[in-house]
């Protein structure tokens, strides 16, 4: 679900766009067409909510609120990407095992161990991602509950764009408040740290594997370039130090020269 949040906002934005308007010519839908269906779903959910709450019966109103909240949870479930590019909801399926159970023996043991370490790091990355997804989902649930508690539905005859905007803004306020509570929690901070740490290890192991292949093909590796860069840095530092040592000496020399009386 790459760039999913972008799709999500466009999904919502599309309902205000001319392309989403009933009867809009197909040619006007350029840029928004892929999201028109989802936009219609949002509008339908909002209308259903307004009509449900306007019926007057408490059970019907409660059901309308719950349905609208559920819709928003579903709509935003994949709405946000982690640094590194994967949505919270992206961790699915079993991680690759890469011979995890094989004993590392013989001349290929180092290669096998590198692969096993990479697979283990990948597994931990996915595990952390699943925990983040659960926390994100919990935050959305809390947001939906908070939203439902605060809702003041517009009059059914007046489901104007302004009323939809107001509903949307109210939802955003509730969502940010719920998310902030989650994001400050120890559970979220730990899951995020686990995700970043496991991703870092995964990348390091992959780099190591790639470097092995590069050596076989006699290609330069990042490690070699880094070594050269460090050497260059220390040469530059020595040069700067030498220059700054010479500066005061030159200044003293110049000052002595100036004091010398002219013949």
């Amino acid at each position, binding site marked *: 679900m790459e760039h999913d949040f972008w799709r999500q906002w466009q999904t919502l934005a599309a309902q205000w766009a001319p392309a989403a308007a009933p009867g809009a010519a197909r040619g*006007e839908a350029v840029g928004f067409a892929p999201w028109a269906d989802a936009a219609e779903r949002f509008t339908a959910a909002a209308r259903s909510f307004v009509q449900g709450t306007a019926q007057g019966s408490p059970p019907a109103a409660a059901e309308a609120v719950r349905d609208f909240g559920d819709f928003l949870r579903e709509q935003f479930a994949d709405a946000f990407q982690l640094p590194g590019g994967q949505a919270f909801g992206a961790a699915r399926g079993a991680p690759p095992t890469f011979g995890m159970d094989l004993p590392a023996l013989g001349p290929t043991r180092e290669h096998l161990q590198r692969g096993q370490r990479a697979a283990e790091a990948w597994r931990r990355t996915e595990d952390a991602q699943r925990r983040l997804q659960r926390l994100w989902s919990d935050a959305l649930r809390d947001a939906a509950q908070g939203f439902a508690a605060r809702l003041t539905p517009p009059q059914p005859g007046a489901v104007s764009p302004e009323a939809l905007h107001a509903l949307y803004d109210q939802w955003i306020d509730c969502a940010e408040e719920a998310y902030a509570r989650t994001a400050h929690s120890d559970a979220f901070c730990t899951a995020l*740290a686990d995700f970043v740490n496991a991703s870092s290890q995964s990348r390091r192991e992959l780099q190591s594997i790639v470097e092995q292949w590069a050596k076989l093909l006699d290609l330069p590796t990042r490690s070699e370039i880094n070594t050269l860069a460090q050497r260059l840095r220390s040469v530059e530092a020595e040069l700067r130090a030498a220059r700054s040592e010479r500066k005061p000496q030159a200044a003293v020399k110049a000052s002595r020269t100036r004091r010398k009386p002219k013949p």
Partner: protein
Amino acid sequence: MTDPNLYAALAAASHSAAGYSQKQAVWQSGKLRLYRYQPIARPTSAVPLLIVYALVNRPYMMDLQEDRSLIRGLLAAGLDVYLIDWGYPDGADRFTTLADYIDDFLAGCVEEILRLHGLDALNILGVCQGGVFSLCYSALHPQKVRNLITMVTPVDFHTPADLLSKWVKKIDVAAWVGDGNVSGDALNQLFLSLMPFRLTQQKYMELMRGRADRERIENFMRVEQWIFDSPDQAGAAFLEFVTWFYQENRLVENRLEISGRRVDLKELRQPILNLIGRKDHLVPPAASAVLQRLVGSGDVTTLEFDLGHIGMYISARAQREVPSAIAGWLAVR
């Protein structure tokens, strides 16, 4: 209702947020450029003002457009303004350290300005992370800084509202950085995730609601360009900054060393103006306000504005209030 021309106007918008005011590069070191702005008013001070911006975004935010430019406000007040542009680090800069940034690049800019003006000390305006650098530099070289202004600058990195600090607490930053740089795109995602609903969705919905007039769209696009025009971060400096400041809070605990020398905020005895955004979600007000009790100066002014982090640079209110506050404060010192 969305203006039917909005989509076309967005597609046609230019992306030209390179800064508005006239300036000239007067010094450079590696990718760093030191700019001096062309005056637009009669000079009111012989002491130049050096603006030290953060590494994580581009400094043209200080001069985004004619009517949204902190720099233009300062120039209009008759100040002689310099700005550091750190450039875009690439793979060759991965081992650049905080000592390089503070004691080499920033120090080099100060020396150059002092040489040009024949002065012993100048005024510094440090912004956000640039404010942290300015505090470090001024503490290490107090005799070269006549007046110090910090703007949306974190000092205490462990205040309860500091979400970034909580997030990085358990992260193995050395493993994250590895031997490379840190991608600007990854940092963008991190900043967006502080308020994901507002920053990735509501903001664009607001855009959809308005008119498709060119000025509004161009204004939006300039800010959008600035937000996502994020340089990669030199790996070594990033590792040091996150570890020493965010994780270990060394500045507040008086344990920070740059180039082997202790950065003691008590050494800051010059007048200090600290500008804080009350709605700042990146640098909580408490993280900045603590400066007053940590410095050795008896002349500290703290001004709070009812603005967010970005609003401190570009909001209409900031244009009215921030440059005049800085110029007025400097005028009597």
